């Protein structure tokens, strides 16, 4: 991915609603396998947290978290349209979802977030605080604990 000038923070609008049409628009723009609207509706209904990012009113990216609401969850479909890539939107999406999870972890509890980065994007997730340690687990992970930073 080519890194361009980052957008000004205020230019990226984030919202916690996501329709199946928006989901498919972004997923298809990066060439991921596509699904039917019906399948996406079911998937979104069973999603813990979701987010969409807009720039100048235009849909630029999406992301979501699926999991068991208590012990473990996975980032999924973190996706930015090609024309908006390399400008800090993906990182804002990941940080937004990470914050959502943190807000909902109660004192003394901890939750594991896992993700499967596409090839070459490990460093991107490291910037968001994720660790990669194949001696422990094959994916990338992050423990959110409410009793520490």
């Amino acid at each position, binding site marked *: 991915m080519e890194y361009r000038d980052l957008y000004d923070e205020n230019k990226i609008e984030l919202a916690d609603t996501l329709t199946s049409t928006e989901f498919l628009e972004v997923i298809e723009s990066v060439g991921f396998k596509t699904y039917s609207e019906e399948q996406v509706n*079911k998937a979104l209904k069973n999603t813990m947290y979701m987010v969409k990012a807009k720039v100048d009113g235009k849909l630029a990216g999406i992301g979501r978290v699926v*999991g*068991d609401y*208590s012990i*473990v969850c996975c980032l999924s479909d973190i996706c930015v349209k090609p024309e908006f890539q390399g400008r800090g939107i993906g990182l804002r999406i990941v940080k937004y979802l990470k914050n959502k999870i943190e807000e909902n972890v109660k004192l003394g509890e901890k939750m594991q977030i*896992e993700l499967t980065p596409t090839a070459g994007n490990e460093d991107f997730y490291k910037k968001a605080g994720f660790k990669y340690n194949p001696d422990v687990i*094959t994916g990338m992970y992050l423990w959110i604990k409410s009793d520490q930073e």
Partner: protein
Amino acid sequence: MISIKENINKVEEYNYLFDQVGWGCYENKISQKALDNTIYSVSVYDDDKIIGYGRLIGDSICFLYIHDVMVLPEYQHKKIGTKVMNKLLEKINRIKLENPYVRVYLGASKGKDDFYRKFGFITRKEANLGSGMILKNTD
């Protein structure tokens, strides 16, 4: 007598196995919430003693995650884990009928890659993806 049951999700049994395989322990209410939000699970018993478990979480249609495949240490290497995985894969295959492109992920513990390979999993690296393992599409 070994038996397999679906969607039992008894918190005491889950916590017992979790502790016995050396993963630590969760408070009952934390495990309970996790089990309540589990799509599908398999419990294996020797008579009425819990000896194995595995569960599926995810959005139930596009993304599935195999988690907490556990076998009591004294019952390991007796194909109990294989029974758990086969039963989970039966469920996954039913979901596949609804969505052939469902993504199935698991985070294998160190040294367990070859166990999961037997069921068709390959590492994401082998699939030219980033880290992690996915279920290899057979079609």
